């Protein structure tokens, strides 16, 4: 029972981590908490759904429930969601930045953007639950007492690959270094010759792509609903804050902690209260360690 909850927690945590990395990046580089980030998850998931509806599904790959079309859909949705994030930035956030809007104004603007994006999904794709595939899968026992679907193993594996890939980009590429530099000191980064708007654009692309993939993973392992991103918002923000804003591995750890806590909580409290667990974690983190697990304290 505990083993299964831990395995489910890692799965949920992996999806949350991808979302939290995007939130963490944008909060450090763009200097505000983007409450519309979760809607990018929803858009990414639905863009992929649209592609799979029009593409030939093909035979499922091995034990997975989906064919190559969904893998191409992941790529396409990642790119298009990145583009969507840039469009939103151009229409809303960049205009506010140019007027030197403070971070609170940006946060409220992101609430508005979230509402618009969520309702557009409702308008375009409808309120019903949708699925990428109707294939049935049988969970296999991967360890004693732990059963996982092949799709779930795929999601976990790809999440690990993405986190490692992103770490390598942030650590070794010039773009990644510029992003880290700008997260720490935009003024010094500018003095070094970094074009701020270029870094901002790439931040949106990376955050949008990760959000899309998290949305697709969520849709693949649960289902697609217009409010799927909104339902993950609190858990994602908690994961980002818990990890320490701006820390890639912090966001991953934060996602895993929230995912594990959610899934382990059902062993001791009714499942109806599972959604309250991120709230409790958030309160505890803000009270005892507001800088997060891997964040640096700003007090001297």
């Amino acid at each position: 029972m505990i083993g299964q909850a831990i395995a489910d927690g890692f799965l949920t945590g992996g999806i949350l981590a991808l979302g939290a990395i995007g939130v963490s990046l944008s909060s450090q580089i763009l200097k505000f908490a983007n409450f519309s980030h979760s809607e990018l998850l929803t858009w990414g998931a639905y863009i992929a759904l649209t592609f799979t509806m029009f593409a030939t599904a093909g035979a499922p790959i091995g034990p997975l429930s989906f064919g190559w079309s969904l893998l191409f859909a992941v790529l396409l949705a990642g790119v298009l969601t990145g583009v969507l994030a840039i469009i939103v930035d151009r229409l809303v956030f960049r205009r506010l930045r140019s007027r030197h809007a403070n971070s609170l104004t940006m946060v409220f603007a992101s609430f508005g953007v979230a509402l618009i994006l969520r309702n557009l999904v409702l308008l375009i794709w409808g309120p019903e639950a949708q699925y990428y595939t109707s294939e049935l899968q049988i969970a296999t026992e991967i360890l004693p007492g732990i059963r996982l679907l092949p799709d779930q193993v795929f999601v976990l594996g790809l999440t690990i690959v993405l986190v490692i890939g992103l770490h390598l980009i942030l650590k070794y590429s010039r773009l990644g270094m510029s992003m880290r530099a700008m997260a720490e000191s935009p003024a010094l980064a500018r003095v070094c010759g970094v074009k701020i708007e270029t870094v901002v654009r790439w931040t949106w692309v990376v955050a949008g792509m990760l959000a899309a993939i998290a949305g697709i993973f969520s849709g693949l392992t649960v289902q697609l609903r217009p409010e799927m991103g909104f339902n993950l918002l609190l858990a994602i923000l908690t994961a980002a804050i818990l990890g320490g804003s701006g820390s890639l591995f912090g966001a991953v750890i934060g996602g895993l902690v929230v995912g594990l806590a959610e899934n382990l909580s059902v062993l001791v409290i009714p499942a109806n209260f599972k959604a309250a667990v991120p709230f409790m974690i958030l309160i505890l983190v803000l009270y005892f360690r507001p800088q997060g697990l891997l964040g640096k304290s700003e007090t001297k």
Partner: protein
Amino acid sequence: MSEPVLIARDVVAGYVPGMPICHGVSIDVRPGEIVTIIGPNGAGKSTFLKALAGLVLFESGTVHCLGQDVSGRPSHELIQLGLGFVPQTGNVFTGLTIHENLVMGGHTLSAAELKTRLARTYEQFPLLAERRSATGGVLSGGQRQTLAVARALMTDPRVIMLDEPTAGLSPRVVGEVFASLRGLAQEGVAVLMVEQNAKAALRISDRGYVLAEGRNRMAASAADLLVDPAVGEAFLGGKRHAR
């Protein structure tokens, strides 16, 4: 006398539109010259340097650097024109390693140029070479200042501006920083700095400007400023300490 490489005329700049801190500041800096701006707190010295570096709101006036009009141009363009800037605080990336800080300093260079400049910088600053994997946050004040200057020199600037380069440093390290600035000037680099440690800064400078309330109050050779009773009284710790 050679032509100035940095000419600022009537610069009006600040942080909020319509509420400037600098109300028309003018300066010139020639190649190989060290020019120091002194003045009381709130005189607009740092804001003026930031305005030249493209970091604050540039409202009016003109700035020419190496013959080009760079008035109000953004920072990332200025560095490509040969202007380096070392801010007073937060002048290194504390979360990045020394090596990464230097790579950031050479952000505008090609990969081949970056490699060459890194090798040269490590040769010039052996301390940085030894600790290249250490993060900027673990360095002492003097080491940070060395890294900040080395970072700014990665692009071989013809003009380098420093905002209080000796703030918070021990007297021994202050001497080392000023010696390295003198060395830069001897190589032909134009050095413009703002310093609270006015007397020590003027001793290694060629000329100086006194700013007060965002305006030019005085401009003279550093030697003249050091013996000027009014300057001595206001900024150099009294008449008897002027020399």
